[in-house]
């Protein structure tokens, strides 16, 4: 009965579409959000997850349905339909993925822009032109617009990061602090200039949804604005030797006054404004 199988197909496609979108919107696979970058990332993730879930469930359903519906018993020697192709169908399933991919591309460009990926690096706080005229500096994602008004006016806090086998060192030029832990005040835009002493490492904080390689001979920039107080792992994500798995540190996001306390305790310079 062609009618009942058409009905079944309709039900399956509805289930696939609704189920896929539901999964994409409701299944959370990500850790907490702790930077201004992270909610933007999660928005992108939800969209990609929904599209992906619909596509995957759809293909899965099509394969399983065909295998059940069109299975034959071993004695049956008949052939199937002599269907060699169907031009309009083929154009259709070239066009649909092309449109989906185009949409994904444009949308993720927008996300990238909102994360600050397209901003020229000179505006990110470091005076790169003056500081490293001899070197090209890449990176710079994470300096997107920040929600809180306070931080909009605040100049980014500059931190120099040095990576080496198998540790990160954080240097605060303002107070001449060198620390093995990264302390940052909540809501304050941070701009880090990173360089490696030996091999390639990578700075990754999953709760910030940000990663940037730390490269010998070529400084890189990473910006972020922490939004949630807490302690989060800093993880080296690029194979850098036997102790690569142990190359970790912690970023401590603190309320402004706690940060100031830490800063004053560790600073070697006496800074009058503080």
């Amino acid at each position, binding site marked *: 009965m062609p009618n009942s199988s058409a009905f079944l197909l309709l039900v399956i496609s509805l289930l696939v579409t609704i189920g896929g979108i539901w999964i994409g919107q409701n299944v959370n696979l990500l850790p907490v959000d702790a930077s201004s970058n992270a909610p933007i990332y999660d928005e992108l993730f939800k969209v990609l997850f929904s599209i992906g879930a619909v596509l995957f469930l759809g293909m899965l359903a099509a394969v399983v349905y065909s295998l059940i519906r069109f299975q034959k018993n071993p004695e049956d020697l008949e052939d199937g339909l002599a269907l060699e192709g169907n031009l309009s169908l083929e154009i259709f399933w070239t066009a649909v993925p092309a449109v989906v991919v185009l949409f994904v591309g444009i949308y993720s460009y927008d996300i990238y822009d909102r994360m600050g990926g397209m901003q020229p690096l000179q505006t990110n706080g470091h005076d790169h032109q003056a500081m490293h005229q001899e070197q090209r500096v890449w990176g710079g994602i994470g300096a997107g617009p920040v929600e809180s008004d306070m931080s909009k006016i605040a100049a980014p806090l500059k931190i120099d990061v040095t990576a080496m086998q198998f540790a990160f060192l954080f240097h605060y030029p303002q107070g001449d602090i060198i620390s093995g832990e990264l302390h940052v005040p909540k809501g304050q835009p941070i701009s880090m200039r990173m360089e490696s002493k030996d091999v390639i490492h990578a700075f990754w904080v999953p709760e910030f949804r*940000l990663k940037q390689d730390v490269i010998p001979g070529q400084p890189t920039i990473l910006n972020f604005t922490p939004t949630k107080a807490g302690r989060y792992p800093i*993880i080296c994500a690029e*194979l850098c030797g036997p102790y690569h798995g142990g190359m970790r540190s912690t970023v401590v996001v603190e309320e402004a006054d706690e940060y100031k306390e830490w800063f004053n305790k560790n600073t070697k310079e006496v800074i009058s404004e503080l």
Partner: protein
Amino acid sequence: MTIAIPPANENSGKSLQPKGLFRYFSFSLDHKVIGLQYLVFGFLFYLIGGALAGAIRIELTSPMSDFMPRDIYNQVLTLHGTIMIFLWIVPVVNGAFGNYLIPFYVGARDMAFPRLNAVAFWMIPPSGLMLISSYFITGAAQSGWTAYPPLSISTPAAGQIIWILSVLLLGGSSIFGGINFIATILKLRRPGLKLMQLPMYCWAMLGTSILIVLSTPVLAGTLILLSFDIVAHTGFFNPELGGNVIVYQHLFWFYSHPAVYIMVLPAFGLVSEILPVHCRKPLFGYTTMVYSIMAIVVLGLVVWAHHMFTSGTPPWMRLFFTIATSFIAVPTGIKFFNWVATLWGGRISLNSAVLFSCGFIVNFVLGGITGVALAQVPFDVHVHDTYFVVAHFHYIVYGGSVFVIFSSIYHWYPKFTGRMLNENIGRLHFILTFIGFNLCFAPQHWLGLNGMPRRVAEYDPQFTFVNQLSSVGALLMAISTLPFLWNVIQSAYKGPIAGDNPWRALTPEWLTSSPPPVENWAGKAPLVTEPYGYGYKTSSSKTGSKPQEELAEEKQ
């Protein structure tokens, strides 16, 4: 079916070749012998690579580094990746099935350059042995299969140099093979056989061989420069001597992204051969399939920097490679829709070959979806170099290529040996592999998203349970090879006799005895112009195939 005859080449010298099992250990020039040499040798290395994977999964059952020393762990990891790519998947999907099938498909009695072919195969055992022995003699390379400098310059030199030499040899072998396939497909076609009448696997191998010939020399050059940096202390990639580490990454991925298509395009071709036979239907959309292969070849050459989104890449480059990479999904998608359309309305025998092919479709779709997500820069900056990427590429290379290799073994084993495999054991093998594979790799997506980087021997204790789940999956995969091995070994002696064409297939390798004679056909080579002509009903019967095109006269 019209048959036209190129005369058997009497002067080929192959009558002097050894006979019996011994010929598989000889410098045989017979493309079928060479194909099976690739297959069996590749499978041995698959077992070795699998054992190494087992060691990795054992180490990762606990958050501490406690099963092996850390530097050994990195050696095991490097060997595992290198062996699986260069000694198992690339040689098997290209060398094994390519050598066995391509001469049949173009209607030739051998490859264009049989001696070069044998040389290409015999370059593999020494390089494989060299790679493995480095572990016992000097300590193997420990900078991963990507060998990024400056890590590869600063780790112990002996192991790294042996790794480079062995990859150079394997790359050379691959280039020789690629040249041979291009020449065979373009020049050795049987008179009367047009390009657009070739079985799809020929197109896949043509595309793959073009990628091999264009990109492998770049890898070779890069690794030679890297070896200079290591032994002669030159400074190409050594920042201390003014070198640039990012240039290495560009050069490496210029080969290694196409390399992923070198591993998967032939698999696409093989699936396109297997499905029509067991669905009793023509391959859906032959022409669009051909064009999408060629589109993948062209696009595949311009997407390499998507592996470098977090290294020193300027914003415009990030954008360009995001878009180029995303668009590969279009021709790839076409192929998957066409395969599902091939299933649709067929009369499907649900045997092991079909199960593994359909398993491939499902797994690869998931790997392709995560691939498109990874191509988006803002998505990738979180998950690059994490277990998410490990999950992505295992869905592609294992769920894709390895599933297709198994499907192909089930499909062509009767031709290779003249005997049938046991279907029930085959299905058991599929079920164990499919469950084990998904249990092993699906949870790794979550691990990566939540903070577990790749290539580590120790991890945060919160990830213990999921890692153990993954290790159970790996154990199932290991167990699944046992029924497979038992099946292929005992069926070679005790399996039911297959006959020439147990699947009632139309492609030319089935129009001869099983196993086929030297020179492939006892008499004339058949002209098959409709390799997928299933389902044409004739007046006398409900089943039948499209008549093969007639030759006006026999041209020679």
